[in-house]
């Protein structure tokens, strides 16, 4: 890592930090934030995510999978940020569109699929996988991240926590309360706001009037950064800086990652109702995967043959996960009651015994 120093406008957090151009060429004077081996590994995860999205979409259309929200277009944003963490001690507190960050921390495609196929146990992270469950109640996870960072440090652990949330979720009161508390407690937390242009159909211009979400950080007494979210190197670099601040006990950072949702909100959404096709095309030209691929090729870390091989490997990985998830025992009605309480009230225990019977309460 040896980035050019941030410009004044970058510091003002209204112009995104950019390193790797849409053509895959590094900005003049910049060193790559990742070695080519690391960049290749990150690229692999980005491509796995894209591969998964495509496969999952077709499974969903076949009725083999529930509604889900693809990551497509945001791979650099999610992978670049997660890559800055140490999975053995750092934590991820996700919204729901951060599949590769969860995988990077050790969660598995098989479990993700299991959940999306209707078995709740798929939502259980194994011990050692430092991830909180995905969050449906938008922004409710952000206070959790602050408490988690606080609690880990309270116990003397040198851990930091990244929490993801969208431009839409950023409007919720929970985000404000959490960022303010994080400032007061100098919590080791990174607020990673993925501005992908939309909250379902609502464009970001109707979500807020601010020039940049990153400006909000000053209102809580910590730094804010704006980064080109389609640029793996820039995202990694900016997040890395935040991780270092957190490790040094300097407290939180807010990062606005400016990216774009190339697909629908989820498999039930029809974006043609509200997405401007021209805007969509302009962002398709900024595909984060294309950029890293070009750079890797220019570095000689990737070529036609190795990419075909890689793609085949990823297809196989996804196929194996699908097979394993589909082979998993079917969900049982009794699972409605499992893990609700550690010590269930008698009344709940009685309901549990009767579940599935017509005579049930």
């Amino acid at each position: 890592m040896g980035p050019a120093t941030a410009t004044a406008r970058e510091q003002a957090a209204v112009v995104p930090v950019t390193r790797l151009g849409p053509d895959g060429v590094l900005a003049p004077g910049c060193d790559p934030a990742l070695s080519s081996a690391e960049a290749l590994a990150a690229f692999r995860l980005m491509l796995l995510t894209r591969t998964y999205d495509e496969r999952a979409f077709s499974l969903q259309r076949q009725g083999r999978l529930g509604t889900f929200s693809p990551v497509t277009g945001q791979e650099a944003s999610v992978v670049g940020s997660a890559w800055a963490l140490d999975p053995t001690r750092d934590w991820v507190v996700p919204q729901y569109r951060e599949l590769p960050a969860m995988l990077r921390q050790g969660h598995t495609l098989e479990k993700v699929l299991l959940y999306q196929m209707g078995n709740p146990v798929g939502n259980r992270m194994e011990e050692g996988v430092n991830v909180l469950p995905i969050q449906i109640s938008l922004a409710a996870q952000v206070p959790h991240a602050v408490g988690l960072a606080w609690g880990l440090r309270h116990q003397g652990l040198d851990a930091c926590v990244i929490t993801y949330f969208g431009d839409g979720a950023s409007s919720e009161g929970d985000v404000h309360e959490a960022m303010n508390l994080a400032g007061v407690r100098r919590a080791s937390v990174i607020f990673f706001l993925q501005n992908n242009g939309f909250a379902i159909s609502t464009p970001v211009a109707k979500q807020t009037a601010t020039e940049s979400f990153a400006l909000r950080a000053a209102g809580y007494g910590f730094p804010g950064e704006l980064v080109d979210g389609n640029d793996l190197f820039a995202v990694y670099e900016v997040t890395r800086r935040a991780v270092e601040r957190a490790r040094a006990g300097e407290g939180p950072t807010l990062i606005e990652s400016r990216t774009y949702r190339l697909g629908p909100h989820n498999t039930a959404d029809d974006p043609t109702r509200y997405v401007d096709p021209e805007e969509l095309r302009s962002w398709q030209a900024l595909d984060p995967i294309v950029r890293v691929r070009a750079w890797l090729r220019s570095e000689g870390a990737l070529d036609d043959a190795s990419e075909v091989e890689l793609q085949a490997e990823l297809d196989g990985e996804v196929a194996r996960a699908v097979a394993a998830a589909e082979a998993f025992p079917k969900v049982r009605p009794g699972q409605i009651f499992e893990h609700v309480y550690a010590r269930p009230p008698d009344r709940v225990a009685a309901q549990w015994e009767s579940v599935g019977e017509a005579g049930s309460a």
Partner: protein
Amino acid sequence: MAVLNMVEAIRQTLADEMARDGRILLLGQDIGRNGGVFRATDGLQERFGEDRVVDMPLAEAVIVGASVGLAASGLRPVAELQFLGFGSQAFHQIEGQVARMRFRSQGRYGMPLVIRAPFGGNVRTPELHSDAHEAKYVNSPGLKVAMPASAYDARGLLAEAIRDPDPVLFCEPLRGYRRIKDEVPDADYTVPFGQARLVRDGTDVAVIAWSAAVTVAAEAAAQLAADGISCAVLDLRTLVPLDVRALAEVVARTGRAVVVHEAPMTAGFGAEVIATIQEEAFWSLEAPIGRVTAYDTPYPIASVEEHYLPSIERVKHAIRRVAGEV
């Protein structure tokens, strides 16, 4: 007269009311260009403009809180919560502000506003989207709570809610948006609050329900009729006001009752129905009143929701039990 599903009935009512009263404005997430995630407001922004059909930031408390201010300014906001489950984010604004503003201001600021919120199971939503939270709002005095079970009532109760000078939480069953269809007059009408609807009369057991559970109750009753058990089915329509008299009357006829709802059992509104019946019709009761409800657990993953929700089988079983047959 046309056969409409519930979402069509709601959309048409919103359009008609907005045309009738220029003070009405709609606000919510994705209700404008996208026409609402269930298309309840489809076409309304085109027709009434961006000033009257307003896409809001993703923040339920300010959707409701701004509605309080809009109402204080003399308008009649109709706010949409994308799902009732996210009403919890606005709970302080609903129970603490909307419900109490008239009282707090001693009549100066009435709150003629409506909060529309879809909820309810059997449409395979993700977590937190289907929960039936009605009892929490009923226990928040100052608010009225409407829970239509048919397209006819969706239209009539929504028109009534919009015209009512008091604030109304209007809960719309997701399951009914497409799957509940019935005849809806073209002419203007309202369904008054606090008047339950006798969906079917009967002499053995009264089945009491609201919202989509009415369909389940009615189907169970229909099936049992073939077996010689005669059920009355009462649709409460509004929980506040509650039609206490209708409850007493139907139980006076049957002596036996079952309540059906999608919320968890404990402290669900079924408890209030039972308490009210035993207060008003104790001497008619020939058996304990049955409850068929969701369990006392969080709403589960969609793949098992049919085991969680009251099913026709469970309702039939409860009716038979209450009728003394099992």
